[in-house]
Structures are given as structure tokens and as C-alpha cells.
């Protein structure tokens, strides 16, 4: 817990960590701690969002994030409903405004939105009274995932400031990595990015992270290593020669992981590609907190929904 005076949460949306202050991020993490107890109970419910309606608008396929949000909403006693569009609305050129306006007409309080286009929730948030929670927009941000990653880190290590956190994999297309970079650098962690040049975004050093291509050097002395999924081809561009070469140069295994600190933890936003970015045995080892991340995800999402629900009332 911090000693700072807590700022009350006043925004109706959570669009990303890029525009959040340190105090706001810490408020979410502190609030999440209080909510993690709810999921341990017999009766996993609190009446906080009773009578509130939340729509999960997932325009990009997802099972894990969607289920996590749904459970968080139901445990807060909200009326939760999912809406997915068949196929990608991007290729159909469907008007997002129409979709959102229709949802608003159902008198919904919060929309949890996942969309294939970066910036879609930002564009939509100005035009609706509903609170918008970004559950992933294109390759831009996935704030609740980064928040649960940071929450997990903080729970295990006691703090974030000064920790060395390393991300290995496809950073270029990872909204999870981007959100983490924003959040971790704001909270004072040392962030290292590792991968082939083809998977690293232009100028990322200017965001305050180190880029190291050699995996052994990158994870040397790391407190936490997060592995990212890779896809060989994106948009008809081949980004590396073969899965085999990627696995042999960047795949994390028990031997390699020894270069990190002895008490280092391993994280992965999932789903895991066993044998590609991570050795199967390592994924199941005691140093892997991948499943803990999933559990913490519900507490973090409950905290976010709780805080946002206060701000929406204000704006009406």
C-alpha cells in the first residue's frame, strides 16, 4: 500500500494506461487487493453493481478475457450480457457508432469493449454516456491485462519500483506489452524488451525501456520475465524465418531461466504456446505464476468496474 493521498477515481472510462497517472494506477491496484478476498469466499458475490447493466462487446474473438470480465461482473451482482459480431466488423466496415448507440438505447451502464482497431474505444468514448472499458484495441492497449500483471508482481514482490521486468517476444503486435510498458515505467520499474528487430516497435526506447536482442543478456538479473505469444505471419509479412528458429533463440526453458534472479517469476498473458515461447516443464514449474495471473484478473477487473461505476453516475 502506498503512503500517497488517494485520488478519487473520476473518469467514466478506462481506455489505457498511457493516460493514467501514477496515483490512478495505484488506486486500481489497491482496490483490487480488497476485491481478491471476494473470490475466496463460499458465496462469491457482493452487491456493489446490483441493478447495473454491463455489456461485453467483443468484436474480436476471445474466450479467456471475456469469461474473466463476465465473472467479475456477475460477482459484483451486475447484469452482464455478451455481444459479439460474427466475423470482424473491420472488414465489413460496420459503423461502430451504430452499434454503440444501439447498446446505449438499451440503458446500459458500462460497455467492456474489445476491437480489432487501435483507438476504437477512444473514438467511441466521447460519443456515449456509457463507461467504456478497453478490453483490447488493435495493437494499442489491453489495460486490464497489464494491471493484473502489475498486481501479480506487486503481490509477490511487495513493490514495483526498482524491479527489473523483461518482456520477450512479439512486442510490435502486443497490446499487452504496450500497456505494461506504460504502467511499469510510470511506477518506476526497469523495463527490458527482447526479441528480433522485426518484432520491436520503432523508437520504443523513447518510452523509457531498454532493448536487448540477446535473451541471456536481457533476462540477466531479472525479477520477472513475461513471455509473449508469437505468430509467424501477420498481414502477409514474414517476421522471422521459422517457428523452430524462434523457439531455439528466444524460447524460454529451465536452463535459460537460470540467468534471471533465483526468485524470479515467470508470467504469460496466455494462451501459452508450449514448446514455442516456453518449455512445457517451465510453464508448470513453481516459478510460473501464469495461473495466478488468471485468478488476479478477476479481482482487478472487479476493481476497475467498481471505480468506473462511480464516475458514470456523476456525469448523468
Amino acid at each position, binding site marked *: 500500500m502506498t503512503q500517497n493521498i*488517494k485520488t*478519487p*477515481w*473520476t473518469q467514466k472510462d478506462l481506455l489505457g494506461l498511457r493516460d493514467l497517472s501514477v496515483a490512478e494506477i495505484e488506486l486500481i491496484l*489497491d*482496490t483490487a*487487493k*480488497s*476485491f481478491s*478476498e*471476494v473470490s475466496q*469466499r*463460499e*458465496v462469491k*458475490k*457482493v*452487491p*456493489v453493481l446490483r*441493478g447495473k447493466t454491463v455489456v461485453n462487446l467483443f468484436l474480436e474473438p476471445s474466450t479467456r478475457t471475456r469469461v474473466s470480465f463476465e465473472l467479475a461482473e456477475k460477482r459484483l451482482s451486475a447484469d452482464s450480457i455478451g455481444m459479439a459480431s460474427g466475423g470482424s466488423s473491420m472488414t465489413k466496415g460496420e459503423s461502430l457508432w451504430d452499434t454503440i448507440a444501439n447498446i446505449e438505447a438499451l440503458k446500459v451502464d458500462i460497455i467492456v469493449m474489445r476491437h480489432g482497431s487501435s483507438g476504437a474505444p477512444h473514438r467511441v468514448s466521447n460519443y456515449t454516456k456509457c463507461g467504456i472499458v478497453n478490453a483490447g484495441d488493435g495493437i494499442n492497449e489491453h489495460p486490464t491485462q497489464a494491471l493484473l500483471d502489475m498486481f501479480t508482481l506487486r503481490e509477490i514482490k511487495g513493490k514495483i519500483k526498482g524491479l527489473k521486468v523483461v518482456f520477450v517476444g512479439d512486442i510490435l503486435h502486443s497490446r499487452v506489452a504496450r500497456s505494461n510498458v506504460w504502467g511499469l515505467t510510470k511506477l518506476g520499474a526497469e523495463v527490458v524488451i527482447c526479441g528480433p528487430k522485426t518484432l520491436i516497435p520503432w523508437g520504443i526506447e523513447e518510452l523509457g525501456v531498454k532493448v536487448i536482442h540477446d535473451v541471456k543478456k536481457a533476462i540477466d538479473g531479472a525479477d520477472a520475465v513475461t513471455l509473449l505469444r508469437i505468430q509467424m505471419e501477420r498481414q502477409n509479412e514474414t517476421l522471422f524465418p521459422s517457428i523452430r528458429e524462434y523457439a531455439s533463440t528466444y524460447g524460454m526453458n529451465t536452463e535459460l531461466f537460470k540467468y534471471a534472479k533465483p526468485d524470479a517469476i515467470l508470467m504469460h498473458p496466455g494462451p501459452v504456446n508450449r514448446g514455442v515461447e516456453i518449455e512445457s516443464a517451465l510453464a508448470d514449474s513453481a516459478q510460473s505464476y501464469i495461473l495466478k495471473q488468471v485468478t488476479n484478473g478477476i479481482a482487478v477487473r472487479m*476493481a476497475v468496474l*467498481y*471505480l468506473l*461505476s*462511480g*464516475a458514470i*453516475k*456523476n456525469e448523468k
Partner: protein
Amino acid sequence: MTASEKQVLDAGGMERVLARIAHEILERNQGISNLALIGIRTRGVFLAERLQKKLYEIEKKEVPVGILDITLYRDDLSEVGPKPEVHETNIPFDLKGKAVILVDDVLFTGRTIRAALDALIDLGRPKVIRLAVLVDRGHRELPIKADYVGKNVPTSLQDRVTIRLKETDGEDEAVISGGPKA
């Protein structure tokens, strides 16, 4: 205490009142078995811990203490603007079959206790729930009654009752302030 405050309990008074409540609890429960103390954040928790000590002094047995945060059960959540801070609820024992003594500093409208009861029911099934408060200032808005009261203090609605505890404020006292201005 400031000039406009009137003291209704001093440090000594508070000690005596807590000692009496401890005895009353034991009397009604016919002993110490199955007792559990649950303090309502924040000051209720410290009072529960003091009661725990008093009970130990008498019976030489430790009664478990739990911490209850009732923020998520408040009935005014949809009205209050930015959401109030939530703190942890921590009840490290099974509620089933226990005689729970809810502990709070001031009993006023009764809404806090109503929220606490809802929270407790969600957390388990105690055998019985009783309420101990340091000060009862009247003006109930719900049919709630305290089983153990430190001091009954008649107040007007404009009055403010402030409890100070050594653990949080450096001294022990209960004061009333405010009321119709001169």
C-alpha cells in the same frame, strides 16, 4: 478536545466501559466457547482487539478477531459520486456455528450495521450475531438494536460524535461537538 467539544467519555471511562461489556458478553454467552469478535473498520477493529484482550484477561482463552469492511454493502453506493475506498475484509476463521459479536464505535442510523449483517451472511452462517458499540447516539432509521452499549449519549441530529482512540488518534475519548450555533 477543542473548545466547542463536550467530552462524554474519557480514557478511564472507556476502559471501564469495555471491561463491563467483556463481562456482559461472557455472562450472556455463558462462557467463552464459540465466541468470535468482528470489528467494523476502522475503529471497530481496535475496539474488538481491546475486547479480545479483556476477555483473555478474564478467561485466559483467546477469542478470534476478524476485520469487516462494509463499503461494498453500503446502501448509498449508487448515490455517492466517486466510489469510496474499499479496504480488505479479513476473517481468518470459519463463521459456522460461532457466536459473533459485531463491534463498532458509534451506533447512529443503523445502516452500517445493516450492511455488516448482509456482509456476514454472505461470508458464512454464524449461529448468532450480537452487536457491541462504544456509544449509542440514537436516531435509528432502521429497526436495529445494540446488545451491549458502552454509553448512551442523547444527541441532536446536528451534533457530531467523535471517537478518538490511542491506536489511531493518540488518545482515548468520546466527544460531542456542533449542535445549534450561538
